[in-house]
């Protein structure tokens, strides 16, 4: 107990001591544990690829785990703005947490770069900017393909959480506008061992296409479940959360010939040279795989990597107006984001405005097809 007190005192002092320097201080809160750790850990990996200085200012990055718990996320955010006096908050990668943090960011008038395309009610989110593409933008390549291939009805099976909810809303809206009807909606949990009941019901409704809204290796199980029920692989579509090699690794031959919506980062080498994101994407994949192993690159690492690109654009702009650690600097960062114009990143092209904090242009998404265990871009 004696030592514990010493540790506690030391930690308290350390916590107090941070944050009064001229460095640019950035607070990052991502889920490193809990059910969405598959989103948080790659995000943290992406952050570790950030440069150590931008425009001559040292980057002081504080990374905290929010354990997939919005309460912890809010605590982290409060700690960032009061204790560490950060200039900018990054996080979280899980939707409910990022939503909860947005209130704290708005109150403290600090920019939040959310790693999840969170929906916020009207009037809120003045200080929140999303780094990932919105599900609406990611729905576009899928619905376009459906229109092209004459799909008239579709079925949906997705996570019973914020991710699945967002996808259901956006894909239904876009599809209905294109005259495509929804004939079945099923939900499941990542921890489920099978979706036989849901698959039976959905396949029984015989839709022309089925969309699976899941992420990472968790997207493989429903895919295999549908295939087992006899549904043709070529009619199954996955969301961008599943655009990782983990899907192919776990799904095996059952995902061959299926489609996945994705940002451009993962298939950067296959993009045409004219694509503004190609060079950045190639650089991302190179750096990420060098640090974390071959075939490890994924969407979430790319978004975190893109944050650095955005920072490299806006920090110099803000430095012209104020010093780091001041309220003016934080306001200047917000202004810079809204006026910077087009920022090419590995995942597309960002163009934030005062009214649009989602940023990505509608032609950002690409449709990929799983071919021979790798991605192929569908034209």
């Amino acid at each position, binding site marked *: 107990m004696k030592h514990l007190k010493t*540790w506690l005192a030391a930690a308290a002092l350390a916590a*107090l001591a941070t944050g009064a320097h001229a460095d640019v201080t950035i607070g990052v809160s991502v889920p490193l544990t809990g059910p969405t750790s598959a989103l948080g850990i790659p995000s943290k990996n992406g952050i570790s690829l950030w440069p150590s200085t931008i425009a001559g200012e040292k980057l002081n990055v504080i990374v905290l785990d929010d354990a997939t718990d919005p309460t912890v996320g809010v605590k982290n955010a409060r700690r960032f703005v009061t204790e560490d006096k950060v200039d900018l908050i990054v996080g979280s990668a899980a939707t409910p947490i990022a939503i909860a943090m947005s209130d704290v960011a708005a109150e403290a008038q600090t920019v939040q770069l959310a790693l999840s395309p969170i929906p916020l009610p009207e009037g809120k989110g003045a200080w929140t900017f999303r780094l990932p593409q919105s599900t609406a933008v990611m729905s576009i390549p899928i619905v376009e393909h459906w229109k092209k291939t004459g799909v008239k009805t579709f079925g949906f099976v997705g996570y019973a959480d914020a991710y699945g909810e967002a996808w259901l809303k956006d894909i239904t809206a876009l599809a209905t506008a294109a005259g495509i009807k929804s004939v079945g909606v099923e939900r499941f949990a990542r921890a489920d061992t099978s979706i036989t009941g849901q698959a039976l019901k959905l396949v029984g409704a015989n839709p022309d296409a089925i969309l699976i809204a899941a992420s990472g290796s968790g997207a493989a199980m429903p895919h295999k479940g549908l295939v087992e029920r006899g549904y043709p692989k070529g009619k199954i579509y996955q969301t961008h959360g599943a655009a990782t090699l983990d899907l192919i690794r776990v799904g095996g031959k059952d995902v061959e010939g299926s489609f996945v919506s994705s940002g451009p980062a993962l298939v950067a080498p296959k993009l045409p040279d004219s694509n503004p994101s190609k060079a950045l994407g190639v650089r991302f994949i190179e750096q990420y795989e060098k640090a974390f192993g071959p075939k490890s690159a994924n969407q979430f690492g790319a978004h975190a990597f893109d944050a650095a690109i955005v920072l490299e654009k806006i920090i110099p702009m803000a430095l012209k107006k104020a010093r780091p650690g001041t309220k003016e600097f934080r306001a200047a960062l917000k202004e810079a984001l809204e006026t910077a114009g087009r920022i090419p990143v590995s995942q597309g092209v960002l163009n934030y405005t005062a009214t649009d904090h989602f940023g990505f242009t509608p032609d950002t998404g690409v449709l990929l097809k799983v071919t021979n265990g790798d991605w192929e871009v569908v034209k």
Partner: protein
Amino acid sequence: MTSSRWFLLAFAAALALLPQLPVPEFWVTQLNYIGLYALVVIGLVLLTGIAGLTSFGQAAFVGIGAYSSAWLTLNLGLSPWLAVFGGLALTALAALLLGWITLRMSGHYLPLATIAWCLSLYYLFGNLEALGRYDGLLGIAPLSVFGLPLNTGRSFFYLLWALVMLAALAATQLLDSRSGRALRALKGGSTMPEAMGIDTFRAKVTVFVLAALLAGMSGWLFAHFQRSVNPSPFGLKMGIEYLFMAVIGGVGQVWGALAGAAVVKLLEDQLQVLLPRLLGGSGSYEVIVFGVLLVGVLQYARDGLWAAVVARLPRRARRRDWADAAPLPEAARPPHGELVLDVHSVRKEFGGLVAVNDVSFQVRAGEIVGLIGPNGAGKSTTFNLVSGVLPLTRGEVRLRGERIDGLPSRGIARRGVSRTFQHVKMVPEMTVLENVALGAHRRGRRGVLPAMLRLERDEERRLLREAERQLQRVGMADRLDELAGNLALGPQRLMEIARALSADPSLLLLDEPAAGLRHQEKRALAGVLRQLRAEGLSILLVEHDMDLVMDVSDRIVVMEFGTQLMQGTPAEVQASAAVRAAYLGTEH
């Protein structure tokens, strides 16, 4: 003013001062969360530490409180001060329903049920459209006092900690009262409290709802502090953490709740920051450390932190303020010789085994009847049949003309029958005086609410006076403030008798009262019994000590193998060859 009162005042003063000092905002936030957790843990201390009902699911009640208040303020525009009543009402309703199902379960089924409904409610929260599913509800208004919104940590701090202190005080005051004694008796099983006239099921539901209300209130505060709610803080993990806080702080101590909440919260936070810095890599370390710590605490410090603190503080004796309290009203004793207990052909079968075989006897007012027989004769079983602990297979038991067989033991207790037990059943953590006062439970009537508000002091003094009187009668008046668990077996038995007497019975059932007593104590006991008989009490006595039985009994009933062998005066029994054969065997 006692030292603990001083300490309490100092603590409250420190809390009141804290937000005004230049303490970093971070620590104010920490203390706020500690306060929110402490509210829930106080309820858990009452539920698990005192009443012995382990609950892993308190987090679900926090959720009900938080969501209802959030929904009411967002959708109906109610002020949070009104919404809290809605929230608490809903929490109480849910607690009544869940308690009704859960509290009928015994042993380890109960905590398993709490896990089940905690998970069930968590998934329900996450799936209801009206509650925002997994995104939850946002933009909840802060609480405001006289128009001032409590939207900063410091301003919220006052309200929160005022409520925490009130809750802790109320809980402490509850425990030191008639209802509190009833709750503390629950842990050792329901046989003894029922025999004292306490409705144990009702008591369990009461403490369950109380704990739920505290959790619900914490939820209400949480919703208006964080200003957004979603399902994650109301899941099983948090439920387990609350229990962890209670265990670390000392699950039987109300103030331990605060200590436990503080230690766990601070530790968790520091681990979250420290360990990744020390060890690098992804931060699942604090979960591992938590798990290991939990096991460690249970292995080495099971009574928790606060118990260690309390053990070092001098225990103060209770202030004797009841000397001038009015005596409790006593029921009129039946006239000497009237038939008090009529046991008619009672039979008890356990499957194929006949434990009590059509036994009949009577006890009259002002009479001591002894029930003897070799071991296994069925004496204690007969006792349990008479006092309602076991149901009869056949036969009748009448108390002053009224049939009492088939009544639950507390119904029989309320009709003036009081008993002691073959294996002493008491509450070891309470003092001797408090244990004896437990016997007088049905002679009081002030319940939980007056106890928490300290409005029942008059009745309490009367009850304690009665308890002291009975202790004087059995010769233990000098040991009022000793912990009952520290007594030797002999004084424990005397204490049990004093407790039985506190109930003002007309019939006293004593199950081997002299077992473990020394010779002088037995003589004193015999004197007490004779005195009671002179006052008109009827006594049914099971004993093995022949000297005592033959000395005090007016009549003796002898049983062997469940059957009544003979009845008669001590002289007749001693002369009977059948009795001698039963005890010593026949000659060959």
